[in-house]
């Protein structure tokens, strides 16, 4: 019983931020845009009807969970996708996948030992 608790003790980093970031369709659209190529803010903006500050706000959320990285190129800020944090979401699922494997094995042993 200590074992599942310990497993749960190590959830993937920052996954709460990540889920929140991915929950928004506009932010997922930004990720898909950047999945094709890196681009400056102006080009990201051009794909949206929303205001520039709104787009910037979404990008800020994506930057906070490291899904988007930026670099300066002269006067432009180039945005690019960093896909690595996406692993954390999959990690949650595989985390519980293993957790239940072990849990059910324990249940089986326990029930079968219950004479």
């Amino acid at each position, binding site marked *: 019983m200590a074992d599942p*608790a310990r497993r749960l*003790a190590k959830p993937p980093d920052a996954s709460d931020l990540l889920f929140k970031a991915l*929950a928004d369709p506009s932010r997922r659209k930004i990720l898909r845009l950047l999945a094709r190529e890196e681009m400056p803010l102006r080009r990201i903006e051009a794909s949206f009807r929303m205001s520039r500050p709104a787009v910037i706000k979404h990008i800020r959320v994506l930057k906070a969970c490291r899904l988007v990285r930026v670099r300066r190129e002269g006067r432009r800020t180039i945005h690019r996708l960093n896909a690595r944090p996406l692993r954390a979401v999959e990690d949650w*699922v595989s985390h519980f996948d293993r957790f239940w494997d072990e849990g059910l094995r324990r249940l089986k042993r326990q*029930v*079968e030992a219950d004479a």
Partner: protein
Amino acid sequence: MTRIRKEIVIQAPVSKVWRHLTDPARIAAWLMPNNFVARAGRAFRLDCGTEGEISCVLQEIVPEERLVYSWTSPRLRIETTVTITLTPMKGRTRVTLVHSGWDALPPRERGIAGPFRKGWGLHLRTLKDQIDRGARD
């Protein structure tokens, strides 16, 4: 991997397996310390020690057949669902556990990722595929 589905066959009748799924002391022995109450609508917690707890609400309870509870934690954020089904097999019991709710995406977005019922997993894989393709182009 959008939902977790596990099956195990236990060499015991459903009545016995059921007791281990619904009695707090027995649940504690295979899962976690808890304050489970076998009544639909009741909230209970699973204690993960120093790491906090998992909050659950029992949504459905069909004696010796099915148990459904919501499952969330401050770290997990999204509300997931655990469904445990017992199937009698001539004195033995097949236990099927499904942990779902990982696909917190709205249907419209799921359409982009693929078939309607696929969720996060596929969506993320699709995104990754796109990324890989993007890298190659």
